[in-house]
């Protein structure tokens, strides 16, 4: 099976990443790479992000650089499969279960039962309601993507995430605390 994998391993940073990041990418997720036709894995801890920021000197990089400089970690696991059913709900649940603690708030939850697509966005906030972490879970029949960004984010940063790096702007719509789910 053809597989594209982009894998960055900084040996020391893996250990520190496991201890520093709030969300742990479970081992069963890594096993999905064996079944995926295309795998993207990005594991960047704070030290590596600071190193990367030193080399983001182009004019186009400035906003990304300002964002990246304050982050503690960026973790991406993205899998594409040739057929539906190559990953299970349990694989995704192993990440979701870590987001059930009160410090995490689900702000977007979109499910399409007909198409089998599911998109969830979680924020972690501190006492002053500042966003300190973001998790995106995008589960399609043949694609699974989990993104964890650890570090302070402003709403304008979210706009930039969805806008400045080559795609249209996204306004993050925060749900009131206590509201269940989102658009279904």
């Amino acid at each position: 099976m053809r597989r594209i994998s982009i894998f960055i391993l900084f040996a020391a940073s893996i250990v520190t990443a496991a201890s520093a990041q709030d969300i742990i990418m479970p081992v069963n997720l890594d096993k999905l790479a064996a079944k995926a036709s295309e795998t993207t894995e990005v594991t960047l801890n704070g030290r590596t992000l600071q190193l990367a920021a030193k080399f983001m000197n182009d004019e186009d990089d400035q906003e990304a650089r300002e964002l990246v400089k304050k982050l503690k970690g960026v973790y991406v696991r993205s899998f594409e499969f040739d057929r539906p059913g190559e990953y299970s709900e349990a694989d995704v649940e192993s990440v979701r279960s870590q987001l059930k603690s009160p410090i995490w708030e689900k702000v977007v939850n979109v499910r399409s039962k007909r198409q089998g697509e599911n998109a969830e966005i979680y924020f972690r906030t501190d006492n002053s309601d500042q966003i300190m972490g973001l998790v995106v879970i995008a589960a399609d029949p043949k694609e699974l993507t989990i993104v964890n960004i650890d570090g302070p984010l402003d709403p304008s940063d979210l706009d930039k995430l969805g806008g400045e790096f080559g795609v249209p702007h996204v306004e993050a719509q925060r749900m009131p605390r206590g509201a269940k789910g989102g658009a279904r």
Partner: protein
Amino acid sequence: MRSPKPLSSYVSGEALGRDRKADRVKTDGAGFEQLVREHQSMVFSIAYRFLHDRAVAEELAQDAFLKLYHQMGQMESAEHVKFWLRRVIAHRAMDHARCVHRRREVALDDVQEPVSPVDSRDPLLERGLRKLVASLPEEARMIVVLRYEEDMEPHEIAQTLSIPVATVKSRLRRTLVLLRGKAQRLIGETVR
């Protein structure tokens, strides 16, 4: 298995129609070093974009430069050196691909992707395109690499690969159609 062509067959100053007296290449060590630094990206990139194997690309590129070192006395001009290097690395890369007899698997499992000077605007699409290019047959793949990486015109590609210009043009046309269709399926958008 086809054996590699002798390197002497790659050298053809007359084919370029250049004035032999103009722009002589310095054959001393400093001249060679200058040529290495000037063309290292070109030679490595052609091999790497074609083979998607960093270690082999480096090996073939080093080999090409070491051969150049021993052939410096035969170089007519700076243009000749460039043509010679492109031709050598293109043929060597294609010979290597044929000798290995395996389908190009785009396994970018290098720890580091080679550094490109310009940041991409759409890394996902570009990665997909590189994968599609890597799946092409050897000759079509090298034509695409020389056309879009080296900005070479069809007649230059034809000289480099020793094939007719009409073949280069028709292969290029068909390959673009093929890549466009596959790229559309890849990204789900219309690609002009």
